[in-house]
């Protein structure tokens, strides 16, 4: 079998049939990373020794009877989830040498299941960016065309999954950072409901918006990975107190019970024609399957983007105040410098331009005299958007729309124009502001050979509807997404 292209469920079955084992599979992935990742830069670092040690443990565990479906499955982990003893950089010079003294809850859960971490994947610095160009370790490239960005900020994880440099990966999504790169690289990416997955050990960007989620080769894998990481965690005070269902149970149920909303605000100005047409074609697939298609309206969509780019930088400016060169991270100071000089030099030398921009924007929005005009106003618009979505979800189970207004763009194209890059997040930020789940499902390639994604949104804890619709779309999709040729 071709180990590296297998899904989680296929590889798990192959372990049980004896066709391959975790050590052989881990070696195959490490070899492929060695061979291919020079072209992509999907990984900041691989953890080969650690991975092989875990793979050996998994092999033994599979011989007993307490193995899980993730036992021995090689994964990529976005480099902003803390891994004990393994450098966690967030793509930033300021954390270049940070070795966490603890594991994130998601890492603990994957370890308990016997999953194997292959390495830490590249990302925009502190997850601030939509292209994975803003990493101090250099840009990641799109495996479908290496002149193009893979999307971001979880572009390393997306590129690694699409190029078969891991079986599946974890990303994080604050304004679209899982869904947009998933759509740009032709994979499945899910941002779960806020609070469904613990944020303990996730390096904070915007705490009221951040959420960890799966990035996978198919819809079933996304359900499998979500099953493993979801659930209450006492170490995250925003973690929901609930027992999540088995998400794989919602696959293959058909869509004839579903009501699917199509919001006109997601098909307006700025949307690439081919993307719009493809998404509507996918809506047609759901309709043919018996789903009821309903027009809905999210009037505050465009304003939500402006609100997002006040709220996220405001929270970031506060969260990133901790990087001061005292307890960990990069320090820069001359022999005669005061404490404040040391703070300034360490922060100025350690943060990249986009992170500085967002800290500045957030500090400004929160400063005396501007708080009401910007921050408070943005939080009020957030409420109105949330009301819009609540009204829409009283009529439908799912909203179907594009994940991004255009397919991937060329490396360097938007680096000089931050606002242009921000505008690309218009269809994704709504889910973070309202705390609802959203998934990007592959919808084939455009005429230039670049992937297109269709986004499915649901009400809070409505992941089941997303899995139901996504598995149907995957099964009945007329547009195949071929493996990238590398």
């Amino acid at each position: 079998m071709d180990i590296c292209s297998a899904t989680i469920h296929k590889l798990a079955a192959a372990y049980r049939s004896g066709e391959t084992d975790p050590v052989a599979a881990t070696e195959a992935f490490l070899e492929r990373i060695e061979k291919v990742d020079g072209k992509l830069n999907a990984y900041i670092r691989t953890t080969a020794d650690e991975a092989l040690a875990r793979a050996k443990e998994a092999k033994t565990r599979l011989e007993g009877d307490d193995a899980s479906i993730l036992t021995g499955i090689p994964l990529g982990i976005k480099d902003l989830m803390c891994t004990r003893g393994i450098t966690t950089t967030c793509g930033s010079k300021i954390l270049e040498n940070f070795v966490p003294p603890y594991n994130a809850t998601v890492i603990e859960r994957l370890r308990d299941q016997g999953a194997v971490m292959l390495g830490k994947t590249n990302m925009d610095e502190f997850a601030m960016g939509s292209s994975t160009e803003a990493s101090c370790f250099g840009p990641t490239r799109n495996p479908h065309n290496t002149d193009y960005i893979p999307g971001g900020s979880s572009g390393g994880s997306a590129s690694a999954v699409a190029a078969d440099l891991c079986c599946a990966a974890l990303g994080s999504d604050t304004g679209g950072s899982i869904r947009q790169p998933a759509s740009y690289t032709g994979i499945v990416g899910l941002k779960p409901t806020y609070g469904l997955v613990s944020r303990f050990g996730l390096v904070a960007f915007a705490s009221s918006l951040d959420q960890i989620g799966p990035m996978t080769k198919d819809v079933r894998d996304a359900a499998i990975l979500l099953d493993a990481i979801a659930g209450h965690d006492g170490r995250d005070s925003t973690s929901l107190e609930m027992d999540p269902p088995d998400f794989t149970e919602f696959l293959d149920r058909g869509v004839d019970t579903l009501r699917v909303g199509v919001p006109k605000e997601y098909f307006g100005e700025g949307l690439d024609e081919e993307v719009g047409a493809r998404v509507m074609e996918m809506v047609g697939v759901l309709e043919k399957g018996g789903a009821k298609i309903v027009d809905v309206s999210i009037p505050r969509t465009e304003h939500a983007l402006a609100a997002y780019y006040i709220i996220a930088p405001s929270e970031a400016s506060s969260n990133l105040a901790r990087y001061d060169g005292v307890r960990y991270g990069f320090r820069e100071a001359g022999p005669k410098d005061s404490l404040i000089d040391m703070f300034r030099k360490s922060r100025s030398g350690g943060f990249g331009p986009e992170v500085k921009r967002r800290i500045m924007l957030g500090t400004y929005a929160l400063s005396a005299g501007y708080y009401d005009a910007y921050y408070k106003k943005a939080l009020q618009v957030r409420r109105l958007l949330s009301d819009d979505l609540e009204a829409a979800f009283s009529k439908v189970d799912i909203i179907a729309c594009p994940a991004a207004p255009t397919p991937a763009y060329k490396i360097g194209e938007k680096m000089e124009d931050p606002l242009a890059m921000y505008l690309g997040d218009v269809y994704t930020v709504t889910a973070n502001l309202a705390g609802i789940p959203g998934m990007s499902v592959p919808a084939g390639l455009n005429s230039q050979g670049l992937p297109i994604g269709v986004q499915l949104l649901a009400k809070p804890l409505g992941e089941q509807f997303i899995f139901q619709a996504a598995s149907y779309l995957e099964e009945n999709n007329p547009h195949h997404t071929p493996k990238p040729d590398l």
Partner: protein
Amino acid sequence: MSDKDAKITKNEVEYVARLARLDLTDRETERMTDNINDILTYMEKLGEVDTTDVPPMTHAIPKQNVMRPDTVVPFKDTDEILANAPESKDTLFKVPKVIE
């Protein structure tokens, strides 16, 4: 953009940089002023929305304060934590002199 249309001036950018504990070079300050002006001009959109009597939404999910039992748990990983410190002495973080 002429100065009178500017949402934020170079002086204000320098002031905000001080608040954020960032040193910007002259070139960075100029670029930052341009970028933030573009972004704040876009933000004027927010003014179109009537938010009279709309309560601000600070969190995605309504959340009460979460309490846990206040129990002492011994912490053994001091060395691992200090290993990350740019400078430390015994079990303390070392910083430049604060008081002259």
